[in-house]
């Protein structure tokens, strides 16, 4: 598992208050991890802060699973 994947999963566990085992790459924030639309906005903000990137709104809308976030950040973070 990449360093980025570890950091993403840690943020998801902290923000959504879910158990680490549930945070698989296929897990959907809303359907599987109990997030609502505001939670996902805050998650994206937390990713931006942690990885020092800006995630535009149209890109944020495509980040629906843990794997989506990892892929985006692997491609776009320095």
């Amino acid at each position: 598992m990449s360093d980025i994947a570890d950091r993403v999963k840690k943020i998801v566990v902290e923000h959504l208050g879910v158990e680490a085992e549930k945070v698989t790459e296929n897990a959907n924030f809303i359907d599987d991890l109990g997030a609502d639309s505001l939670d996902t906005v805050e998650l994206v903000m937390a990713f931006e802060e942690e990885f020092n990137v800006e995630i535009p709104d149209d890109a944020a809308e495509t980040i629906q699973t843990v794997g989506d976030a990892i892929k985006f950040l692997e491609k776009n973070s320095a």
Partner: protein
Amino acid sequence: MRRVVVTGLGMVTPLGSGVDITWRRLIEGQSGAARVEAFDVSDLPCRIACSIPLGNAGEGAFDADAYVEPKEQRKVDPFIVYAMAASAQALDDADWHPTSYEDQAATGVLIGSGIGGIGGIYDASVTLFEKGPRRISPFFIPGRIINLASGQVSIAHGLKGPNHAVVTACSTGAHAVGDAARLIALGDADVMLAGGAESPINRLSLAGFAACRALSTGFNDRPQQASRPYDRDRDGFVMGEGAGILVLEEYEHAKARGARIYAEVVGYGLSGDAYHITSPSPDGDGAFRCMSAAVKRAGIAPAEIDYINAHGTSTPLGDELELKAVERLLGEAEGVSMSSTKSATGHLLGAAGAIEAIFSVLAIRDQIVPPTLNLDNPSVETAIDLVPHEAKRRKVDVVLSNSFGFGGTNASLILRRVA
């Protein structure tokens, strides 16, 4: 109009989490005041407050995790957490947990706050300044605005009746109880969770209230002596935090389900001073008309009042004006006791009227009136028993509770023993 009774109580106060511990300590004459340790107060004129005992602070300490998940606490200001905790306690106490659609729709929430999430607004302002708008959380607004106490409580318990909030400074809690009682009396709901919540203890609030010259500044080295209503050495109020919530219920509804009835809400009066933004009207007329309206609504004679839970914040001006207005109301009436429980709890602002309504209910239940602490030398002579230092056992059938707020907004409640 339909009769309204009190069937459940819940509170989180500087004297502890829960009605029993708070009431016991209040009757014992304990004070909740201490030097503020949670943040730097070295440059503030007032360095003391009545804070809620947290975590491992011993018996009565408030464990927020028992009421609200940690990840949800993070999203809201503490006044919402206090409101949710006190509401859960009150619903348990009333044994009212509606599950049918009809019962849920007949149960509403009316919780107010004087200021709401001022701590979180301050923090977000700093974030905006330092990091820009993209770092403002989506939970910033819904975690700070005042009616989200009522909103969160309704969501947590499935209460689908009227969902409302009051914002009238230090009269908020009393207005919330009075307005909720009216909603039941008029048939808009059968049960209401009503009260107030406040979390004002931070640098910004202390600086702001100190600038209004409202806070005690001369007792920083003796915090427990600072709140001293009616005493000649009083010099301002001591800020407190917490929440008080009452379950109000239509009388027949309560009887039909065999609920324990603490007392009846028989009187509610409101008035405006139309005088000044922070100072009470010097003739005390607003307070007098407010109490008179409550007495008229209750259909009682002023002489029937046994105990008055005073607004009595320990400010130089306010205490004596209230006392004069009470003397005007009572005339030659003798035998009333009047105390300010803010001498022990501090001033919980928007929650004050609610916790004091609860104390009024408990005075009726236990036939005892709580003391006015630190009243060593009354600043004026009065025939009224101000209950200095120690609680007093006595007949308590009818209680008047006063609340007066910035803007000249006044509320009085009258509660009566149900035979």
